[in-house]
């Protein structure tokens, strides 16, 4: 009897493993639990996208509930969500852009053509809508790294005390807004 049970053991272990693998297959790997949630916004001191003499720090943002939206002109999904984000702005949601430049490598490319980028940004926002109070330029991607950004678009919901409440990967559309953001926003009001 014992021998038979022992002979069955590998099969049972394997079946258990399969159950986990099966569940893992349908778990959304994009559902990131970055561990940033519940923590304070990392400290930063970065220039404004449109005016490098103007600098933004984490202290400037305290005292208000806002969305930090990571985006770039190179990112088609970002273009797609601009319209809905603009609607949200009109409803009174404060949205701050964190501009994430993909094509530029600080190690390699030397001087960055900021004027060309500003033209791109202006034309895109004129076309698709401008949801942003202002944009922070994170050329070396230090803040993006601190936040655990894995791509664009991604959006963080931050409360008055500067605590990150939500980290969403992918675009924001009415469905996502109702399911994930709206309940939290209501609590905060």
């Amino acid at each position, binding site marked *: 009897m014992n021998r038979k049970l022992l002979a069955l053991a*590998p099969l049972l272990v394997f079946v258990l493993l399969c159950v986990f693998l099966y569940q893992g297959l349908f778990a959304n790997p994009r559902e990131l639990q970055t*561990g940033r949630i519940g923590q304070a916004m990392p400290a930063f001191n970065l220039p404004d996208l449109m005016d490098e003499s103007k600098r933004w720090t984490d202290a400037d943002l305290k005292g208000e509930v806002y969305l930090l939206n990571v985006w770039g002109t190179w990112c088609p999904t970002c273009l797609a969500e601009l319209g809905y984000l603009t609607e949200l702005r009109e409803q009174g949601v404060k949205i701050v852009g964190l501009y994430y430049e993909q094509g530029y490598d600080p*190690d390699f490319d030397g001087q960055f053509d900021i004027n060309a980028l500003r033209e791109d940004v202006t034309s895109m926002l004129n076309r698709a809508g401008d949801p942003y109070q202002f944009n922070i330029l994170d050329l070396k991607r230090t803040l993006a790294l601190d936040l655990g950004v894995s791509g664009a678009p991604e959006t963080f919901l931050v409360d008055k005390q500067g605590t990150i409440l939500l980290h969403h990967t992918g675009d924001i559309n009415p469905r996502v807004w109702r399911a994930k953001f709206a309940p939290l926003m209501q609590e905060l009001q």
Partner: protein
Amino acid sequence: MIPELGYFSLTLAMVLSVLLCIFPLWGAHTGNLRLMRAAPSLAIGQFVFVLLSFAALVYASLTDDFTVSYVAYHSSSTLPWYYKITSTWGGHEGAILLWLVMQAGWTAVVAMRSQSLPWVLRARVLGVLGFLGVGFMLYTLLMSSPFERLLPYFPVEGRDLNPLLQDPGMIIHPPLLYMGYVGLSVSFSFAIAALLTGKLDNTWAKWSRPWTMTAWGFLTLGITIGSWWAYSELGWGGWWFWDPVENASLMPWLVATALLHSLSTTEKRGVFKSWTVLLAIAAFSLSLLGTFIVRSGIIVSVHAFASDPNRGMFILAFLAIVVGGGLSLYALRVSQVKSEGRYKFASREVALWLNNIFLVVATLIVLLGTLLPMIHKELGLGSISIGEPFFNKMFAILLVPFAILMGMGPLLRWKQNKWSMLQNKFALSAVVSLVATAAWLYSSYDVIAPITFIATALAVWIVVTTVVDLAAKVTIHKTLGEGFKRLGLSYWAMVLGHVGLAFVIAGVTLTSAYSVERDVSMKPGDTVALNEYQYRFDGVKSIRGANYSGHAGVVTVLKNDKQVTVLHAEKRRYDIGMQFMTEAAVDAGFTRDLYLALGEQLSQGAWSLRIYHKPYVRWMWLGGILISLAGFLVLGDKRYRQKSTKQEASA
């Protein structure tokens, strides 16, 4: 037209493999010799058609046929011809097709080299291999065909092969690894065939052993080349990252290593029979599991986008059928098996049993470390990551008893030993190892950490005991020449394998302990000293390759004012996709590597450079190559080449 022929050819191969699965297994079940006899020709036919299909993809890639989606995504017209060929396994669909070529190839070779087997066993082995072929071909045809067209709108230029894969190491790494993975399916088929036949005797082990050894040799070489590629291509001098993809190849390797040792015990002594069968099933299962983990997107790095759950579903179902089926059969049959041999505690049997235990524990550690983050998340406990420190610590702990035992094992005899006769040999070897290690390390380095000393001493211990054993075995005979002649090839394989691992241990230990790196900012003409070498920066020049442009930092390396070498550390920017690649410059040496990577341009003509001095890093790969040679050596063993089936009587 050609790609469609490729797809059609694969369909034909699939039909043949369905027949290969049904005819021989049914024939073996009913005792119909005619059905069984069909197996070898079906196996060879299957291989021919899979090969034709692969040739079609290579042709599409060489002729820049960007109407084929796979070619458009993984190749470009500016790619050198040899990378056009390797681009056929640079992506998922093509890699699976290459896997199929290997699978069918192994099956064909088994068909041709198994005349000495009884028909019932031969037919079952080929039938099981046919079944595996059906699974993979079905997957390719339904889920991941590399022959899909992008019509009517196709790009005029391809997206190019990922620059990371444009490296000689990448040309040979995947085929070798797949040879290993797929080769283990032969061990698996032998195990299943033996279970089906119900004869788990030592003849089974004897037949399975050379196949397992060869597959293991390929796997070892594949992993070694992969590590070397990571070192030379990723630009920061690392050689092993404990990343899920690497772990996926390490797990089957560990189990296959256990399997080899267990097979030899079963073959020679008739013990551990059921355990050996289980290991054979486990080794291939872990190859499949590795494929599942890597290909299903179940474990993703932050940059892995779109992975298709349908593909994962198929592989999981296939995994469940193959492994679940194998283990069920095992559960049904194995309780009838009885061990024949008897042995005492101080015996080679026990040493090999412990060896197996350590290897299996190591495998479980890797498996847990790889899957735990996923399971943890599913249980709702949040995301965790298990990284290098965990694996390094666990392996360091396991290494000590494992290496001590590895030195002792070969000196032990089967059945039982008188401890008093061994005492002196072990004591002498231990003293020699400690003295030699102390002499070596204290003459080279000022600071020696205890763990460095222990690990190095263990490597030396393995070499010393191997030499002691070799000397004892050679001097038994009248002349040395005769002594050497009498040693079989499998003995030499053991020597190579063990000494190879000693090299790996020493290489890993010393390079981890004594690598030095410096980040410097240099202007042309500046000199920096690191250990006994001086590095003179001669400036940066522009470079232009077939499909990239960039800069190369030229650095002259001097030792005592004599020029050692000139290194060109490159930074490339690939034309398509605008990807940047660091191409490190390496001056390889037996006792040290000088490794140089070019960083960013700073102000006023200065550049940042990273310089590494890596002692004994080559020993790791040298060791890996020695170990894989051990696997291939057994192929030449006369005992495995005899064609008669009379061996059963003498075994």
